[in-house]
């Protein structure tokens, strides 16, 4: 399902302009990471994808739906949205019920709900905690409950606002694998993240925002190669990219594996 953003402007009622002249498309199955300084407008932009905010000018369409003419609850059939703070949504007394909240709002049958919830919980690794009280779990786990509650709605598009915050190495690896797996199923994943390494590992397209405008929008390698522009948005490329640059590698690398590959090449005897 295609997301299309057309000359999007957004200003708050007090006149502060947060988004200006944004136009782009995101095709089915793309993995897009939106990066930028705090206050650059990232969250404001993604809130337009499910209609939580409506454009002041221009329009946003999800498939054939204009967000202007649909309620947020309707948009929820197409766009799943994971918020930063899980405590702002969790209210059921069992993990299972919390995850079932979204699917039941979508009007699924009890059997379907059971199936969706079980699948979502096993995806995030919480299958054996389905009977527990969400607030008995650690905050990082509660975040996974929130993620499962969004996954269980099985929307074609997923927006993840800062999914990596508070996750340890294992959580990060699981989240990365999950994103890769969801893309395999043809889902579109959009994330906001400050973790450049995570973006480099799992996202193929990077959007860099600065003061409500799109500074760069392109393939991950191309974007992370542009050190000066990134610095202008107060961002630093991934560690491996900087290391590769410092060692004078001929190509831009973004992940550990790419770095090792490129580095090995420079050590090969020349013929």
């Amino acid at each position: 399902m295609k997301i299309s953003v057309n000359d999007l402007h957004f200003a708050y009622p007090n006149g502060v302009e947060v988004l200006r002249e944004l136009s782009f498309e995101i095709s089915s199955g793309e993995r897009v990471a939106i990066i930028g300084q705090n206050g650059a407008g990232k969250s404001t932009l993604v809130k337009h994808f499910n209609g939580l905010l409506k454009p002041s000018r221009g329009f946003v369409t999800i498939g054939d739906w204009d967000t202007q003419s649909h309620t947020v609850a309707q948009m929820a059939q197409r766009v799943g949205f994971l918020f930063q703070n899980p405590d702002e949504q969790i209210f059921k007394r069992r993990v299972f019920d919390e995850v079932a909240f979204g699917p039941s709002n979508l009007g699924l049958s009890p059997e379907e709900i059971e199936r969706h919830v079980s699948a979502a919980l096993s995806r995030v690794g919480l299958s054996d905690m389905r009977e527990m009280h969400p607030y008995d779990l650690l905050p990082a786990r509660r975040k996974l409950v929130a993620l499962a509650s969004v996954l269980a709605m099985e929307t074609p598009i997923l927006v993840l606002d800062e999914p990596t915050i508070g996750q340890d190495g294992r959580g990060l690896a699981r989240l990365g694998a999950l994103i890769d797996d969801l893309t395999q199923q043809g889902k579109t994943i959009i994330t906001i993240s400050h973790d450049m390494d995570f973006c480099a590992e799992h996202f193929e397209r990077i959007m860099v925002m600065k003061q409500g405008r799109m500074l760069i929008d392109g393939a991950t390698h191309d974007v992370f190669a542009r050190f000066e522009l990134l610095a202008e948005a107060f961002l630093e490329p991934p560690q491996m990219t900087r290391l590769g640059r410092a060692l004078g590698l001929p190509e831009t690398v973004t992940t550990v594996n790419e770095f090792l590959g490129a580095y090995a090449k420079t050590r090969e005897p020349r013929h």
Partner: protein
Amino acid sequence: MLIGFSARWPHLPVALFVFLILPLAVWGQLLRELGRTTLAVIFPFALSITLVQGFFYPGATHVIFSLGPFALKEEGLLFAYGTLGKILLLAGAGLLLLFSTHPADLILALVQHGFPNALAYIVVTAIQLLPHMQAKAMAIVNAQRARGLETETNLWRRSRALLALVGPLVFSALVDVHERALALEARAFSAPCSKTSLKELHDTREEALARWAIIVLSIAFIAWQIGGL
């Protein structure tokens, strides 16, 4: 306020509002804010009190006009006017204080005059937490709408939605309180020593004098009204 409430002359509260509170608001450049908020506070009272007292004031006889079995009576309206005048004065004076005095200044002044620190903290956080709670409530509404909770339709569906909204608000408020308490203790909130303040109060002789004058005047006025001298 005390003067207005203890007066036997029914026009005094309104007069005080017009000739004391409003000029003070103009002086402090708060007229717009004060006017708008006072109206918003007063309007529901005005409507209900006028209707209820106007039609149902016990023992009233002077009928102004009748509407079926109900009749609007003069005594009721007068009573409503008296009550409303008091509410107007109460709201006006309270809001003027709220708008003109930063909560931190108010609390600092109270503490310097012997008000317990912990209580002062409770008062000031209660005031400062409101916008925070409001933002949080908004975030919760958004999170649940994003999971397909319909809040834009009829009343029945909306009332069903309430639990999904109140639950996280209460839970996260409890978590907040816990963290706030830890953060306070980590910064020596209950250390048994006297505290200094970053802020300095500019309390002039004239202001102190004015306060005493107000107190004396109020007591004198009440005595006059009650004693009926």
